[in-house]
């Protein structure tokens, strides 16, 4: 699906196999955590990726970053093909893509002052002059709403919200174009979450960033993302502008996810989704979702749906979306 603005980061037919091993005589197959994903992220947008745990969100992020070598398919960055490389070379050409860890506190060395951690990142990327480093750190700390004195603190002295801000400062120092945010609000209190989301919005405008926003919190995704892709067992099952996707979800899985999110008014809408996603080692034939799908028909067990355009800015991979839409 074409994004409305020029693409900055994209992938086609991306496959990532995990845990495969080459034995002496035969190859042991791994599991396909990402299995044929097409994605095209536009410059300046916030692109959400949602789905239950184990659906391949984080593996997709790692493949986009170049930390995980793709098994097949292509990754494009700013119009260039950047796939087919080993992780070291891949990270080098994909420097413009950076990642904010889900738990930025755990990603900080407890024995190092925050300033030293921040300076290390700069040094790795070639900024070795101390005065230069200090100036850039002070500037970035101010940008994430922290006092420059924070550089003298140890990680345990920071609150959860402050740790998130340091996590952001750490990658912003490297002047990325694209930031992959992995569950950026998980475990945060409501008031801190609001402040972090607002900060993310301000930073995006100020530094001209593009976000890939991985989250399972649909309220947050609805609030901050321009477009959303819904993943199930390694595939994108629905994708569209946030407004369309939430107003008219077409895939039964998306409908169930939206219905499951608890609302302030206590209402519950739509059917619930029983059970857990099947293991990646036993992916169902036909549509991967059919064993859990309330709307599954006989064909769903035989034919595998492909992502098809279902509206101006909306694509869905379901054999029955037209019937369901009419119902």
């Amino acid at each position, binding site marked *: 699906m074409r994004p409305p603005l020029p693409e900055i980061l994209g992938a086609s037919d991306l496959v990532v196999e995990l845990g495969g091993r080459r034995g002496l005589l035969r190859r042991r197959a791994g599991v396909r955590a990402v299995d044929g994903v097409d994605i095209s992220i536009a410059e300046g947008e916030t692109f959400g990726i949602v789905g239950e*745990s184990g659906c391949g969100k984080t593996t997709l992020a790692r493949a986009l970053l170049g930390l995980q070598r793709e098994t097949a398919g292509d990754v494009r960055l700013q119009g260039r093909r950047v796939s087919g490389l080993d992780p070291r070379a891949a990270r080098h050409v994909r420097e413009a893509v950076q990642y904010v860890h889900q738990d930025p506190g755990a990603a900080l060395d407890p024995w190092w002052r925050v300033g030293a951690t921040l300076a290390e990142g700069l040094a790795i990327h070639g900024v070795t002059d101390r005065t230069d480093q200090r100036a850039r750190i002070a500037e970035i700390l101010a940008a994430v709403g922290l006092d420059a004195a924070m550089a003298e603190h140890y990680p345990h002295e920071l609150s959860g919200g402050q740790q998130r801000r340091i996590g952001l400062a750490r990658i912003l120092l490297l002047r990325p174009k694209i930031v992959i945010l992995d569950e950026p609000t998980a475990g945060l209190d409501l008031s801190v979450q*609001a402040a972090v989301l607002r900060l993310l919005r301000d930073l995006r405008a100020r530094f001209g960033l593009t976000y890939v926003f991985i989250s399972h919190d649909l309220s947050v995704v609805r*609030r901050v993302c321009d477009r959303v892709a819904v993943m199930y067992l390694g595939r994108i099952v629905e994708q569209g502008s946030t407004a369309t996707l939430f107003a008219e979800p077409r895939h039964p899985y998306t409908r169930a996810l939206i219905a499951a999110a*608890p609302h302030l008014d206590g209402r519950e809408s739509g059917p619930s989704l029983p059970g857990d996603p099947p293991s990646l080692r036993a992916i169902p034939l036909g549509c991967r979702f059919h064993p859990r799908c309330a709307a599954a028909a006989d064909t769903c067990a035989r034919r595998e749906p492909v992502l098809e355009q279902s509206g101006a800015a909306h694509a869905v991979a379901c054999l029955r979306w037209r019937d369901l839409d009419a119902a």
Partner: protein
Amino acid sequence: MTAPVLQVEGLAVHLRGESGVARILDDVSLTLPRGGTLGVVGESGCGKSTLLRAILGILPRGAETPTGAILFEGRDILSDHAESARGRIGFVPQDPYLSLNPVFRAGDQILEIMRRHAPGSRRDHRDRLVELFRAVQLPDPEAALRKYPHQFSGGQRQRLLIAAALACDPALVVADEPTTALDVTTQREILALLRSLVTERGLSLLFVTHDFGVLASVCTEVAVLYAGRVAEAGPTRAVLDAPRHPYTRLLLACHPDRATDLAGIPGTVPAATAQPPGCRFHPRCPVVHSGCAVEVPTMVALGAGRAVACPWHEAALA
């Protein structure tokens, strides 16, 4: 309605530590009627977990003797360390992945609790457990008895722990954010299960959470904690629709479903060792008056079961 199952009156829990006395809870009063569902909601550091620990009698070492009273079925379980009474309180922990010992069969771990607290033979316990597994909708209850924790999914493990909480036929179940580690789809199933157990078994449920959506889906009554005190209490629907305490109003305005500008709340929750005098929210409060820094606000009854600890609850937020 009969006598409440749980009544907390003027509970204070203080911890003595290196950096002075931490006033974790002060003057907390709550009532949970039999068959009721009460949610305790608040941000980290507000004292939710300590309240649960005080009720379960598992306060950490270093805690000063709590003051006030915790009446469970009319008996003060705070003053006499009533082990036998506490056997009738079931507990559902937060993390189903950390709360079961991986090297023992899950069923055996629950049977051990029953041997310790519930009357009956081994055979009775086993039969009861199969019945409980059925009640919490575990697939194939007989086979589940022989399985190890890793053979269950996260949602199934939480069902196991709910079965464990019900094992000794409790009058009260306390749950500590039982769905935070789960996916939304699984969360919805677990919340539905808890609701059905409340109606079908006449359970009383004390539910601690930081998620207002989860609160709205399970609890009919709510108490909002801030910095160790109750800020506001009443029927969940009424409190969520028209919050009266400035803290509750600001906090709900941070919810992504409601937020207009994602403002957040200025400042941070005070450290328990440095609670501000007067109203503990006053340094962050947009409607603060001079008296707020001096006088500890008392709960003002608003009618219809609602109460708020703020004399300025009618003032508009600036």
